């Protein structure tokens, strides 16, 4: 087993790093009197070394993909190639203003236009917008397109969105934000969409059915063509949550399966880094019948010149200021060129292979169970319920104990239909050696005395955290610490 110990600093807060406080404010006469600032901004002044040390210490108490394996299910934590990162920082891309004359932005516009086409080819869709900032915003955009589509057909009684009980939490939240009533349908004992439940639920009130395929159990919905038929027969649309697209690159395309709307997470499938929570990018692709509603501006090509066009009278308008998280677009474009069609297909194959390899070894170990159908795509969900019953070890304990091995835990307690769920997505970036080490760690945890995992983590910057206390007494700013 690899020895791992996180750096552990009792790093002071920024405000405690400096002894000098800002002097009192001198009113600035150029500002209207009623708005002149009269109290100083209480942010301490630091010399650069003190600042660098502070943030360097913090970085050393943080775990990223380059620290170790990070198999968070449905998050596709693959390696982020350095070239993509470096190019996105070039002045030619970053020192540019969104309202610059398009004639002075031909490089970026060409990149975006081509990226749209590449993503259309990969997903089998007809048109694409790069504007949404993240997956959830892509979903929200897709649902606004759904609204606009039905409204144009005077089909205004469609007030419901249906989704399976394995759906990501953002699906119901996005549907609700777009004004829809959410209806959840159960899954079959196979872990897939229950067709008879779907058929009973879809009606002339259904706006769309949202589905992830492969679903969050990592199972491919083999009945997808029948699902599409049921949904379309009632005039509803079929929405593809692209969080799990990595599994099928070059193997199958949502557009061919009958999906009308697709969102893609560039920060998952196309390797733009997650940035500790963002910026992401959630392009949305549609079939022809939904293209008129896409957000503006659209990127168009007139002869040899690229331009931004607002001439789409049926467009839903804007979902975000300007044109999207452009640095993510540069990285994804670079990544697709590096990989090529052949490399993306290879990525899907190995991502699926790695998942099934880990799944098999862990099931064979006899400590973990695999509810539902055996063949998985890029991720699989184990149940640790048996360890809970026999030794009192919960999925949460396993997660915390994995940290002691220098490994990031999987997604836990999701999807909700699996008891003590461990949702593991290794991605294609990991070597067999690393997969084996992860498997060995999970077996060790199951074998060792329960007290070790129940008191874990031991080797991280802090020990197990009192999250209940954080809610009971919210301390959310420096200022809150000053209160008596």
């Amino acid at each position: 087993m690899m020895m791992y110990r996180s750096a552990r600093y009792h790093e002071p807060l920024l405000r405690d790093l400096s002894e000098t406080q800002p002097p009192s404010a001198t009113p600035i006469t150029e500002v209207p009197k009623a708005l002149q600032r009269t109290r100083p901004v209480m942010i301490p002044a630091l010399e650069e070394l003190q600042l660098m040390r502070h943030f360097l210490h913090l970085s050393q108490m943080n775990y990223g993909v380059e620290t170790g394996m990070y198999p968070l299910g449905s998050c596709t934590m693959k390696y982020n190639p350095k070239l993509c990162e470096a190019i996105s920082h070039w002045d030619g891309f970053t020192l540019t203003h969104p309202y610059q004359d398009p004639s002075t932005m031909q490089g970026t516009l060409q990149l975006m236009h081509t990226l749209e086409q590449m993503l259309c080819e990969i997903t089998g869709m007809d048109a694409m917008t790069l504007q949404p900032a993240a997956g959830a915003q892509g979903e929200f955009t897709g649902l606004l397109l759904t609204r606009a589509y039905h409204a144009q057909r005077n089909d205004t009684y469609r007030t419901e969105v249906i989704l399976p009980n394995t759906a990501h939490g953002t699906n119901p939240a996005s549907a609700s934000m777009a004004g829809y009533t959410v209806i959840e349908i159960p899954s079959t004992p196979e872990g897939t969409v229950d067709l008879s439940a779907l058929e009973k639920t879809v009606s002339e009130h259904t706006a769309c059915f949202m589905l992830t395929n492969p679903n969050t159990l990592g199972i491919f919905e083999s009945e997808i063509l029948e699902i599409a038929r049921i949904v379309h027969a009632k005039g509803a649309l079929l929405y593809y949550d692209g969080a799990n697209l990595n599994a099928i690159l070059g193997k199958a395309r949502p557009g061919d399966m009958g999906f009308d709307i697709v969102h893609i997470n560039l920060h998952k499938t196309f390797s733009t880094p997650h940035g500790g929570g963002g910026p992401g990018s959630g392009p949305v692709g549609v079939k022809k019948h939904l293209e008129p509603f896409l957000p503006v501006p659209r990127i168009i090509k007139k002869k040899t010149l690229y331009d931004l066009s607002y001439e789409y009278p049926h467009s839903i308008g804007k979902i975000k200021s300007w044109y999207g998280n452009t640095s993510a677009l540069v990285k994804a474009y670079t990544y697709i060129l590096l990989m090529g069609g052949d490399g993306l297909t290879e990525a899907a194959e190995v991502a699926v292979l790695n998942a099934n390899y880990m799944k098999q070894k862990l099931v064979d170990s006899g400590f973990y169970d695999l509810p539902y159908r055996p063949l998985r795509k890029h991720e699989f969900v184990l149940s640790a319920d048996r360890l809970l019953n026999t030794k009192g070890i919960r999925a949460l304990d396993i997660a915390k104990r994995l940290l002691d091995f220098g490994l990031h835990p999987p997604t836990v307690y999701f999807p909700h239909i699996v008891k003590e769920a461990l949702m593991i997505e290794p991605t294609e970036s990991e070597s067999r050696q690393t997969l084996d080490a992860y498997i060995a760690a999970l077996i060790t945890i199951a074998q060792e005395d329960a007290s070790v995992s129940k008191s874990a983590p031991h080797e991280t910057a802090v020990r197990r955290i009192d999250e209940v206390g954080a809610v009971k007494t919210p301390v959310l700013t420096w200022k809150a610490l000053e209160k008596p």
Partner: protein
Amino acid sequence: MKFIPNSPVKNAMIHDLGLTTTDDLFSDIPAQLRIHSLQLPNGQSQQAVEAHLRDLATQNKPFCDLPSFLGGGIKPHYLPAAVNAITSRSEFYTAYTPYQPEASQGFLQAIFEYQSMIAELTGMDIANASLYDGATALGEAALMCSRYTKKTTFLIPANLSWEKKSVLKNYTIGAGLTIREIAYDPHAGICSRDALAKLLNDQVAGVYLENPNFFGIFEDHAADLATLIHAHQALFVVGVDPLSLGIVRSPGDYGADIVIGEGKALGNPMDYGGSTLGIFACRQEYLRQLPGRIIGMTKDQDGHPAFCMTMQTREQHIRREKATSNICTNQGLCMLAAAVYLAWLGGQGLTDLGIQNIKAGHSLKKAITSIPNYDAPFSGTHFNEFVIRCPNAAKTHTTLLKNGVHGGLQLQPWFPELKDCMLFGVTELHTPHQINRLLTGLKEAA
């Protein structure tokens, strides 16, 4: 190099699983749906891809080649090298959302520091860990006002960016909010108090004001408007340029209930409109209605200070359709850049920067309006953006481009009443040489 270490052992692993070919891994996909390849070029070497991207980058004209005086909410600012040095630490940028706090203390503490500094700047009690951008922050603020007051009308200034108006419409259509626009005073260029008073009634959930507003002008009567708004039991939402807050009162000091803003100017590049940062801060009593993530300070089992995501029962992964927002991934790294940038500047540095910017704005406006045929349609005091009426905006635009400088943002397509008007922006980054080039071009176009 395809970044796939198991490619060479693929067959061995497949056999290990008792399968014979890769296809067996995909046997659950119906045959009629299977494709055999993507119609994309094969992968290329890093060197070849870099050369192609270099070619694309040179087809752009960045600020260093084409100085621009565009306003509209984004302007170039000096980026200290320290910011990128920290955001380029892969422990930060290759991490996911900090779901496992014990392995994410660094990012969590940085978010806590950011929340603290934003609360301090805005005069609010709490701030979240970022939203996508200033426009979506406005959408979320309107929804939050409606949830809190259980009312459904939201008022916005007529002189608001069309981008924000459109995003706001899309964010509030599902909740059925009515959006009404408050006319601006055609002389001062600020929100008309009379127009606001006429629109206020017991259905108004909240009122949005920008300070400085889209025309760059300070709403110096904000405290008075706050009183008027609160008299109708509506919430007062203020949008800020955070770089102005070193010299301008915090909105919390003149009655704001929620403060939002586009925060990209805090340490993030213009990036053609990407790398945005939605600032969202509010008073403590709205905590349970707050959209997005928030980080709290607590203790670990040994009693050491520790940080974690908190109040999560508001969020989509717990609350699903009853969540306060659908947001999951936010703008984490842009937020980290903002935290480093603010700490690099310090409070006094922010004040000094504010002074530089307002002086640059006032001096450039004076220089432009002293050219014959260029005048300022609004009398209100402005920060570092301002509106100029040109003799012929289209001609000015092309003449300036020919002179190797980019002029202001043409407003007429979005504000028909502002014929030939341009919104200029200037910051600490513009050199006297660049300014001279602008003034020369403007004279030529006059």
